[in-house]
């Protein structure tokens, strides 16, 4: 009985959105562009100044000095690693505080997208295409330049694909090609979750599907029937957000579950690699290792000594922050040697011979980045290793199985592991739901019961991860560690908000069915005004999409409000009517 009721309450469908509201009809130039990109930057190497910003496009876009400096330094390789030719990677920087450039399309996106893909307004991603070639016509004989796409969107494969199309064109043809590309992007539809979009860019069309919260996490991607592609498509991007896990982890595949635990429990992790591409891919792979769970701390796919957070993140006076950093400069081997967890990715030689976890060695052995690939840590995993997946993957290497297939196998294994961990939490959370029959217009909306760690742990005996995972080990210890980290807080608050919104919505529906005018009859003015003010607040929340109810309910509520107000003395009526 109780279980049925939970199921009635749990699904969070949004029945309407304000797409048709007055916010959309006037689309200004660059409005649609800014749904996708903040700007494109060209960073060059000036012999006098070092890295310098040559161009920001479109010209009206604002970046603070600090943001410009960060972008400049992060757009070039940090160490003398000889990135000859073309190099692609990405970074993430903090947006300087106090600037308001809120994009409504991003709010819409955040409401419907999977939690792990939500846009964090405090950060920008930079998607870099760096070119270094010999050029005798230039003093010192080298052409060194980067095109960087600055965006709030965490769609790594898509943005990398875009910069890969745009940068070579720009290097060959200069600013007009950038202008043309940005004009194309300014025609793109909003990134609406669940939609399949055809995005024209410089003469080709990229087809992407924007992931939605209602997607099944494992299994085939659903496509809406009405979004069958109509235009011939040059390039179908399999995923706009999933990166190649297998290649990123190949040198350290043996430590897969160790890394999963480190990320799950919010341990500080630094990734040391020989190139920005390798470290950025590895950091991004780490962040996504716990999907569908959202990694809630800061992470920097590529971090340099010039970064404005360098001091904050490398200080030895405090414990290392719970962040994931990707670095290439050998200097970090010394600066970050006190970090508890170091993942070293060597060159990808294709050789992934199994290595045991290396214990944290004496600092002398950590001075250079030439050290062997591996995970250097004192962390003792709580769970035993699943050897089957490693065997299957290494067989795949022998059989020369395509990396996409290897990655998909790996992702599936990780998803199942994360879900085995999360299902007991989701189940316990559902048991904290109030019953539908407790929702009454004569009472306030019921709230979720508080989360009790010990009570949760008691449920593990009969409905713990052992139901879906064969892994042995100290699951309880892992849960306890998880409860202390930001990933748990993030998950809990997200769920709590979702549930409370749903309860608010159900309560609002119950209120709509009630004869409020009759109730008001014998009440005092102060109390009636209080009711009017609160109904009004609720209506505003509903109209802002903070409470998921249908327009119909909002209309009914409006009617109620009008009839309540009409039953009041005339002078009060005029006062209250101006507030609707």
């Amino acid at each position, binding site marked *: 009985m109780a279980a049925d009721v939970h199921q009635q309450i749990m699904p969070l469908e949004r029945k309407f959105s304000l797409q048709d509201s007055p916010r959309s009809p006037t689309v200004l130039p660059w409005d649609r562009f800014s749904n996708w990109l903040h700007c494109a930057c060209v960073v060059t190497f000036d012999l006098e100044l070092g890295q310098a910003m040559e161009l920001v496009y479109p010209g009206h876009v604002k970046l603070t000095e600090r943001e410009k400096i960060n972008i400049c330094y992060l757009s070039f390789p940090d160490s003398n690693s000889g990135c000859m030719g073309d190099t692609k990677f990405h970074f993430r920087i903090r947006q300087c505080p106090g600037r308001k450039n809120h994009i409504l399309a991003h709010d819409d996106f955040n409401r419907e997208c999977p939690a792990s893909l939500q846009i964090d307004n405090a950060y920008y991603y930079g998607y870099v295409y760096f070119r270094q070639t010999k050029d005798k016509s230039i003093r010192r004989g080298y052409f060194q330049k980067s095109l960087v796409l600055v965006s709030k969107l965490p769609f790594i494969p898509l943005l990398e694909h875009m910069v890969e199309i745009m940068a070579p064109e720009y290097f060959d043809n200069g600013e007009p090609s950038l202008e043309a590309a940005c004009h194309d992007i300014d025609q793109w539809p909003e990134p609406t979750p669940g939609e399949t979009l055809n995005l024209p860019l410089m003469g080709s069309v990229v087809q992407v599907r924007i992931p939605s919260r209602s997607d099944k996490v494992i299994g085939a991607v659903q496509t809406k029937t009405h979004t069958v592609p109509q235009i011939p498509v040059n390039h179908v991007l399999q995923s706009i957000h999933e990166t190649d896990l297998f290649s990123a982890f190949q040198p350290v595949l043996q430590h897969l579950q160790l890394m999963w635990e480190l990320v799950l429990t919010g341990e500080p992790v630094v990734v040391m690699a020989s190139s920005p591409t390798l470290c950025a891919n590895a950091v991004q792979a780490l962040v996504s290792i716990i999907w569908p769970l959202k990694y809630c701390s800061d992470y920097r796919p590529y971090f340099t000594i010039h970064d404005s957070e360098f001091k904050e993140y490398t200080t030895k006076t405090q414990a290392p922050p719970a962040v994931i950093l990707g670095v290439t400069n050998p200097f970090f081997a010394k600066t970050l040697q006190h970090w508890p967890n170091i993942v070293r990715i060597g060159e990808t030689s294709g050789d992934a011979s199994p290595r045991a976890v290396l214990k944290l060695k004496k600092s002398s052995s950590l001075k250079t980045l030439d050290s062997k690939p591996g995970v250097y840590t004192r962390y003792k995993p709580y769970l035993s290793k699943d050897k089957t997946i490693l065997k299957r993957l290494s067989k795949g290497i022998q059989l020369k199985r395509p990396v996409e297939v290897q990655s998909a196998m790996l992702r599936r294994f990780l998803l199942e592991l994360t879900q085995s961990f999360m299902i007991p939490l989701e189940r316990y959370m559902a048991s904290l739901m109030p019953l539908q029959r407790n929702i009454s217009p004569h009472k*306030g909306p019921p709230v979720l019961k508080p989360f009790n760690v010990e009570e949760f742990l008691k449920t593990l005996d009969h409905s713990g991860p052992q139901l879906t995972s064969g892994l042995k080990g100290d699951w309880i210890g892992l849960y306890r560690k998880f409860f202390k980290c930001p990933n748990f807080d993030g998950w809990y608050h997200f769920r709590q908000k979702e549930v409370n919104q749903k309860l608010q919505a159900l309560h609002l529906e119950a209120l709509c069915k009630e004869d409020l005018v009759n109730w008001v009859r014998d009440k005092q003015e102060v109390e009636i005004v209080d009711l009017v003010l609160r109904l009004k607040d609720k209506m505003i929340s509903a109209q802002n999409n903070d409470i998921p109810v249908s327009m119909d309910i909002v209309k009914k509520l409006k009617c109620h409000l009008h009839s309540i107000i009409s039953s009041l003395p005339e002078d009060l009526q005029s*006062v209250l009517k101006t507030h609707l």
Partner: protein
Amino acid sequence: MAAGPYNYSYIFKYIIIGDMGVGKSCLLHQFTEKKFMADCPHTIGVEFGTRIIEVSGQKIKLQIWDTAGQERFRAVTRSYYRGAAGALMVYDITRRSTYNHLSSWLTDARNLTNPNTVIFLIGNKSDLEAQRDVTYEEAKQFADENGLMFLECSAKTGENVEEAFLDTARKIYQNIQDGSLDLNAAESGVQHKPSAPRNAINTDQPANKEGCAC
């Protein structure tokens, strides 16, 4: 936490009155949002603000009516005063004219509210000491002569703003406790939550054992 459940035992109606530009809306904003609103538009008619406070362990919801100071709105303000448990009467310490008009505002407040309404005099903009045009002493004397509570405040820095709103509530609560404010009077401006409502409508508070009306 903001999303946390709340509950209150009383609603007190407040009005804020005084000349145009003395900072009524800014005081309200500072009290409800804890922020100074630099470019505040003229209030048209009335605006509402609410905040839940605690006095002697009791949760009290303040329902604050922020009125327009412009003369042309004065005629429509009768319903603003009706049932107010507290009136905050504001002048600007840097503009003597706003102080000189206090007696007219006080007449309205006395005529249009009940005898138990707590009237609190606020000299706003105390941060602008250099431009002071009304001394603390003379305003204090005016308040004493008329039986008003009094503080100088700054909506900009927040100085004494909490105190003015909370002291008013404490005084009203005290009047309830010692019986001088009759809750059953139709226009007391105070709504007590009955402990066993027959048919109460409640839009915000969680269900609780007391079962709150509204």
